[in-house]
Protein backbone atom coordinates (compact mmCIF):
# COMPACT_ATOMS: atom_id res chain seq x y z
CA UNK A 1 0.00 0.00 0.00
CA UNK A 2 1.26 3.45 -0.88
CA UNK A 3 1.24 5.83 2.07
CA UNK A 4 1.11 9.55 1.59
CA UNK A 5 2.15 12.38 3.86
CA UNK A 6 0.33 15.53 4.85
CA UNK A 7 2.22 18.84 4.73
CA UNK A 8 2.35 18.90 8.52
CA UNK A 9 3.87 15.42 8.65
CA UNK A 10 6.49 16.31 6.06
CA UNK A 11 7.63 19.37 8.00
CA UNK A 12 7.60 17.30 11.16
CA UNK A 13 9.99 14.83 9.50
CA UNK A 14 12.23 17.69 8.33
CA UNK A 15 12.27 19.10 11.88
CA UNK A 16 13.11 15.67 13.27
CA UNK A 17 15.95 15.26 10.77
CA UNK A 18 17.43 18.63 11.81
CA UNK A 19 16.92 17.96 15.52
CA UNK A 20 18.66 14.59 15.16
CA UNK A 21 21.47 16.13 13.14
CA UNK A 22 22.05 18.95 15.65
CA UNK A 23 22.07 16.42 18.47
CA UNK A 24 24.36 14.09 16.54
CA UNK A 25 26.91 16.86 15.96
CA UNK A 26 26.75 17.96 19.60
CA UNK A 27 27.24 14.41 20.91
CA UNK A 28 29.92 13.75 18.30
CA UNK A 29 31.79 16.90 19.41
CA UNK A 30 31.77 15.58 22.98
CA UNK A 31 33.37 12.27 22.09
CA UNK A 32 35.60 13.53 19.28
CA UNK A 33 39.27 13.15 20.21
CA UNK A 34 40.43 16.01 17.99
CA UNK A 35 39.89 19.58 19.23
CA UNK A 36 39.70 21.28 15.83
CA UNK A 37 37.21 18.68 14.60
CA UNK A 38 35.14 19.29 17.75
CA UNK A 39 34.85 22.97 16.85
CA UNK A 40 33.72 22.11 13.32
CA UNK A 41 31.12 19.68 14.67
CA UNK A 42 29.77 22.29 17.10
CA UNK A 43 29.50 24.83 14.28
CA UNK A 44 27.58 22.25 12.25
CA UNK A 45 25.27 21.65 15.20
CA UNK A 46 24.50 25.38 15.37
CA UNK A 47 23.71 25.49 11.66
CA UNK A 48 21.38 22.49 11.90
CA UNK A 49 19.57 24.27 14.74
CA UNK A 50 19.06 27.25 12.44
CA UNK A 51 17.61 24.92 9.79
CA UNK A 52 15.31 23.45 12.44
CA UNK A 53 14.03 26.95 13.22
CA UNK A 54 13.40 27.61 9.52
CA UNK A 55 11.30 24.46 9.19
CA UNK A 56 9.43 25.25 12.42
CA UNK A 57 8.50 28.68 11.05
CA UNK A 58 7.40 27.19 7.73
CA UNK A 59 5.23 24.68 9.58
CA UNK A 60 3.70 27.41 11.77
CA UNK A 61 2.72 29.32 8.65
CA UNK A 62 0.71 26.32 7.50
CA UNK A 63 -1.61 26.83 10.47
CA UNK A 64 -1.95 30.56 9.76
CA UNK A 65 -2.36 30.11 6.00
CA UNK A 66 -3.68 26.62 5.20
CA UNK A 67 -3.65 27.56 1.50
CA UNK A 68 0.14 27.27 1.65
CA UNK A 69 -0.05 23.51 2.02
CA UNK A 70 1.81 21.33 -0.47
CA UNK A 71 1.53 21.05 -4.22
CA UNK A 72 1.72 17.47 -5.42
CA UNK A 73 -1.11 16.87 -7.91
CA UNK A 74 0.10 13.41 -8.96
CA UNK A 75 1.45 12.34 -5.57
CA UNK A 76 4.92 11.78 -7.10
CA UNK A 77 6.87 13.82 -4.58
CA UNK A 78 5.19 12.28 -1.55
CA UNK A 79 5.85 8.84 -3.04
CA UNK A 80 9.49 9.83 -3.43
CA UNK A 81 9.69 10.94 0.20
CA UNK A 82 8.09 7.64 1.23
CA UNK A 83 10.69 5.74 -0.82
CA UNK A 84 13.48 7.70 0.85
CA UNK A 85 12.00 6.94 4.27
CA UNK A 86 11.77 3.23 3.37
CA UNK A 87 15.40 3.25 2.26
CA UNK A 88 16.44 4.79 5.57
CA UNK A 89 14.67 2.05 7.49
CA UNK A 90 16.36 -0.82 5.67
CA UNK A 91 19.70 0.84 6.06
CA UNK A 92 19.02 1.03 9.79
CA UNK A 93 20.11 4.64 10.13
CA UNK A 94 16.93 6.59 10.85
CA UNK A 95 18.73 8.41 13.61
CA UNK A 96 22.44 9.15 13.11
CA UNK A 97 22.90 8.75 16.88
CA UNK A 98 22.30 5.02 16.51
CA UNK A 99 25.59 4.75 14.73
CA UNK A 100 27.69 6.28 17.54
CA UNK A 101 29.24 4.01 20.15
CA UNK A 102 31.55 6.59 21.75
CA UNK A 103 34.65 4.80 20.51
CA UNK A 104 34.75 6.30 17.01
CA UNK A 105 37.80 8.09 15.71
CA UNK A 106 37.51 11.65 14.37
CA UNK A 107 37.64 10.22 10.84
CA UNK A 108 34.82 7.76 11.50
CA UNK A 109 32.65 10.50 13.00
CA UNK A 110 33.17 12.65 9.91
CA UNK A 111 32.29 9.77 7.60
CA UNK A 112 29.03 9.13 9.48
CA UNK A 113 28.28 12.86 9.34
CA UNK A 114 28.86 12.97 5.58
CA UNK A 115 26.41 10.11 5.02
CA UNK A 116 23.82 11.88 7.19
CA UNK A 117 24.28 15.09 5.20
CA UNK A 118 23.69 13.17 1.97
CA UNK A 119 20.47 11.74 3.39
CA UNK A 120 19.29 15.21 4.36
CA UNK A 121 19.93 16.56 0.86
CA UNK A 122 18.05 13.69 -0.77
CA UNK A 123 15.04 14.32 1.49
CA UNK A 124 15.05 18.10 1.03
CA UNK A 125 15.24 17.81 -2.77
CA UNK A 126 11.86 16.05 -2.54
CA UNK A 127 10.53 18.50 0.03
CA UNK A 128 11.49 21.47 -2.14
CA UNK A 129 9.47 20.03 -4.98
CA UNK A 130 6.33 20.04 -2.82
CA UNK A 131 6.58 23.48 -1.31
CA UNK A 132 4.95 26.54 -2.90
CA UNK A 133 7.32 29.40 -3.62
CA UNK A 134 5.33 31.59 -1.23
CA UNK A 135 5.64 28.96 1.49
CA UNK A 136 9.45 29.05 1.31
CA UNK A 137 10.71 27.00 -1.64
CA UNK A 138 13.75 29.29 -1.78
CA UNK A 139 14.47 28.63 1.90
CA UNK A 140 14.53 24.87 1.30
CA UNK A 141 16.88 25.47 -1.65
CA UNK A 142 19.18 27.51 0.62
CA UNK A 143 19.20 24.72 3.19
CA UNK A 144 20.12 22.19 0.47
CA UNK A 145 23.05 24.40 -0.54
CA UNK A 146 24.16 24.73 3.07
CA UNK A 147 24.06 20.96 3.55
CA UNK A 148 26.17 20.59 0.38
CA UNK A 149 28.65 23.01 1.92
CA UNK A 150 28.70 20.93 5.09
CA UNK A 151 29.82 17.95 3.00
CA UNK A 152 32.65 20.07 1.55
CA UNK A 153 33.74 21.25 4.99
CA UNK A 154 33.59 17.73 6.42
CA UNK A 155 35.62 16.28 3.58
CA UNK A 156 38.20 19.03 3.87
CA UNK A 157 38.55 18.15 7.54
CA UNK A 158 38.71 14.42 6.73
CA UNK A 159 41.59 15.04 4.35
CA UNK A 160 43.43 17.22 6.87
CA UNK A 161 43.31 14.32 9.34
CA UNK A 162 45.35 12.29 6.86
Amino acid at each position, binding site marked *: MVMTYTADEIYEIAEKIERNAAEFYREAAEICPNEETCRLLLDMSEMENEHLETFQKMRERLVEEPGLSIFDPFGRSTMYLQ*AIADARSWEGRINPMQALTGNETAKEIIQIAMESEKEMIVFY*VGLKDLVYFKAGKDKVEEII*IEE*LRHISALLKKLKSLG
Partner: protein
Amino acid sequence: MSMPFNADEVFEMAEQIERNGSKFYRAAAKKFPEVSKLLLDLAVMEDKHQKTFADMRAKLSGTEIQEPVFDPDGQAQMYLRVMADGHVFDIKADPAEKLADKDTPEEVLKMAIGAERDSIVFYAGLKDAVSDRAGKDKVEDIIKEEMGHIVILNQKLQDLE
Protein backbone atom coordinates in the same frame (compact mmCIF):
# COMPACT_ATOMS: atom_id res chain seq x y z
CA MET B 1 45.32 23.68 -3.75
CA SER B 2 42.58 22.18 -5.89
CA MET B 3 42.32 23.46 -9.44
CA PRO B 4 38.94 25.01 -10.16
CA PHE B 5 36.62 23.10 -12.45
CA ASN B 6 35.72 24.45 -15.81
CA ALA B 7 32.29 23.91 -17.34
CA ASP B 8 33.57 21.26 -19.73
CA GLU B 9 34.93 19.14 -16.87
CA VAL B 10 31.74 19.44 -14.87
CA PHE B 11 29.55 18.23 -17.73
CA GLU B 12 32.05 15.48 -18.54
CA MET B 13 31.67 14.26 -14.98
CA ALA B 14 27.89 14.31 -15.23
CA GLU B 15 28.09 12.33 -18.47
CA GLN B 16 30.32 9.77 -16.78
CA ILE B 17 27.84 9.38 -13.92
CA GLU B 18 25.07 8.64 -16.42
CA ARG B 19 27.29 6.28 -18.40
CA ASN B 20 28.04 4.42 -15.16
CA GLY B 21 24.32 4.31 -14.42
CA SER B 22 23.41 2.76 -17.78
CA LYS B 23 26.26 0.27 -17.56
CA PHE B 24 25.19 -0.75 -14.07
CA TYR B 25 21.53 -1.22 -15.05
CA ARG B 26 22.41 -3.26 -18.16
CA ALA B 27 24.79 -5.53 -16.23
CA ALA B 28 22.20 -5.93 -13.46
CA ALA B 29 19.45 -6.75 -16.00
CA LYS B 30 21.63 -9.51 -17.40
CA LYS B 31 22.29 -10.96 -13.96
CA PHE B 32 18.70 -10.72 -12.68
CA PRO B 33 16.18 -11.62 -15.42
CA GLU B 34 13.29 -11.29 -12.89
CA VAL B 35 13.69 -7.52 -12.91
CA SER B 36 15.40 -7.08 -16.25
CA LYS B 37 12.62 -5.11 -17.97
CA LEU B 38 12.60 -2.42 -15.29
CA LEU B 39 16.39 -2.24 -15.21
CA LEU B 40 16.66 -1.98 -19.00
CA ASP B 41 14.04 0.80 -19.02
CA LEU B 42 16.11 2.67 -16.43
CA ALA B 43 19.26 2.13 -18.52
CA VAL B 44 17.54 3.77 -21.49
CA MET B 45 16.51 6.73 -19.31
CA GLU B 46 20.10 7.16 -18.09
CA ASP B 47 21.23 7.09 -21.76
CA LYS B 48 18.89 10.03 -22.40
CA HIS B 49 20.32 11.94 -19.42
CA GLN B 50 23.83 11.29 -20.72
CA LYS B 51 22.78 12.73 -24.08
CA THR B 52 21.26 15.79 -22.37
CA PHE B 53 24.54 16.49 -20.59
CA ALA B 54 26.51 15.85 -23.81
CA ASP B 55 24.26 18.35 -25.65
CA MET B 56 24.69 20.92 -22.88
CA ARG B 57 28.45 20.44 -23.09
CA ALA B 58 28.44 20.71 -26.89
CA LYS B 59 26.53 24.00 -26.72
CA LEU B 60 29.21 25.67 -24.64
CA SER B 61 31.11 28.20 -26.68
CA GLY B 62 34.90 28.06 -26.94
CA THR B 63 35.29 30.66 -24.22
CA GLU B 64 32.77 29.06 -21.88
CA ILE B 65 34.52 25.69 -22.06
CA GLN B 66 37.61 27.08 -20.44
CA GLU B 67 35.85 29.34 -17.99
CA PRO B 68 34.92 28.14 -14.55
CA VAL B 69 31.26 27.33 -14.05
CA PHE B 70 29.12 30.12 -12.61
CA ASP B 71 30.21 30.11 -9.01
CA PRO B 72 31.03 33.54 -7.59
CA ASP B 73 32.18 32.36 -4.16
CA GLY B 74 33.79 29.09 -5.27
CA GLN B 75 31.59 26.99 -2.96
CA ALA B 76 29.83 24.99 -5.65
CA GLN B 77 33.14 24.02 -7.22
CA MET B 78 34.42 22.92 -3.86
CA TYR B 79 31.65 20.43 -3.28
CA LEU B 80 31.63 19.18 -6.86
CA ARG B 81 35.32 18.53 -6.45
CA VAL B 82 34.94 16.73 -3.13
CA MET B 83 32.00 14.68 -4.34
CA ALA B 84 33.88 13.53 -7.38
CA ASP B 85 37.15 12.62 -5.68
CA GLY B 86 36.00 9.18 -4.67
CA HIS B 87 35.02 9.81 -1.05
CA VAL B 88 31.40 10.60 -1.76
CA PHE B 89 30.94 9.58 -5.36
CA ASP B 90 33.38 7.31 -7.13
CA ILE B 91 32.90 7.93 -10.84
CA LYS B 92 36.02 5.97 -11.75
CA ALA B 93 34.81 2.68 -10.27
CA ASP B 94 33.39 0.12 -12.69
CA PRO B 95 29.67 -0.03 -11.84
CA ALA B 96 29.29 -3.57 -13.18
CA GLU B 97 31.95 -4.87 -10.77
CA LYS B 98 29.89 -3.71 -7.82
CA LEU B 99 27.33 -6.38 -8.71
CA ALA B 100 29.71 -9.22 -7.93
CA ASP B 101 28.51 -9.70 -4.35
CA LYS B 102 24.81 -9.12 -5.05
CA ASP B 103 22.87 -12.39 -5.07
CA THR B 104 19.22 -11.35 -5.16
CA PRO B 105 17.10 -8.84 -7.12
CA GLU B 106 16.21 -7.17 -3.79
CA GLU B 107 19.89 -6.48 -3.12
CA VAL B 108 20.43 -5.02 -6.57
CA LEU B 109 17.34 -2.80 -6.29
CA LYS B 110 18.56 -1.45 -2.94
CA MET B 111 21.96 -0.81 -4.47
CA ALA B 112 20.31 1.01 -7.37
CA ILE B 113 18.33 3.22 -4.97
CA GLY B 114 21.62 4.11 -3.23
CA ALA B 115 23.24 5.02 -6.56
CA GLU B 116 20.24 7.15 -7.59
CA ARG B 117 20.43 8.98 -4.24
CA ASP B 118 24.13 9.71 -4.84
CA SER B 119 23.28 11.07 -8.31
CA ILE B 120 20.68 13.40 -6.81
CA VAL B 121 23.21 14.75 -4.30
CA PHE B 122 25.73 15.38 -7.08
CA TYR B 123 23.18 17.02 -9.39
CA ALA B 124 21.93 19.26 -6.56
CA GLY B 125 25.48 20.63 -6.44
CA LEU B 126 25.75 20.74 -10.21
CA LYS B 127 22.50 22.70 -10.51
CA ASP B 128 23.87 25.31 -8.15
CA ALA B 129 26.99 25.70 -10.30
CA VAL B 130 25.29 25.88 -13.71
CA SER B 131 23.97 29.18 -15.04
CA ASP B 132 20.40 29.53 -16.36
CA ARG B 133 21.80 29.97 -19.86
CA ALA B 134 23.84 26.76 -19.62
CA GLY B 135 20.72 24.78 -18.67
CA LYS B 136 19.98 24.96 -14.94
CA ASP B 137 16.38 23.93 -15.73
CA LYS B 138 17.59 20.81 -17.57
CA VAL B 139 19.59 19.73 -14.52
CA GLU B 140 16.47 20.29 -12.40
CA ASP B 141 14.47 18.09 -14.82
CA ILE B 142 17.06 15.33 -14.56
CA ILE B 143 16.94 15.53 -10.74
CA LYS B 144 13.16 15.04 -10.94
CA GLU B 145 13.59 12.04 -13.21
CA GLU B 146 16.13 10.48 -10.85
CA MET B 147 13.59 11.01 -8.05
CA GLY B 148 11.09 9.15 -10.22
CA HIS B 149 13.57 6.28 -10.61
CA ILE B 150 13.77 5.94 -6.83
CA VAL B 151 9.97 5.69 -6.64
CA ILE B 152 9.87 3.00 -9.38
CA LEU B 153 12.71 1.02 -7.79
CA ASN B 154 11.08 1.21 -4.37
CA GLN B 155 7.73 0.04 -5.75
CA LYS B 156 9.42 -2.96 -7.37
CA LEU B 157 11.25 -3.69 -4.13
CA GLN B 158 7.96 -3.70 -2.24
CA ASP B 159 6.41 -6.04 -4.82
CA LEU B 160 9.26 -8.50 -4.32
CA GLU B 161 9.31 -8.36 -0.52
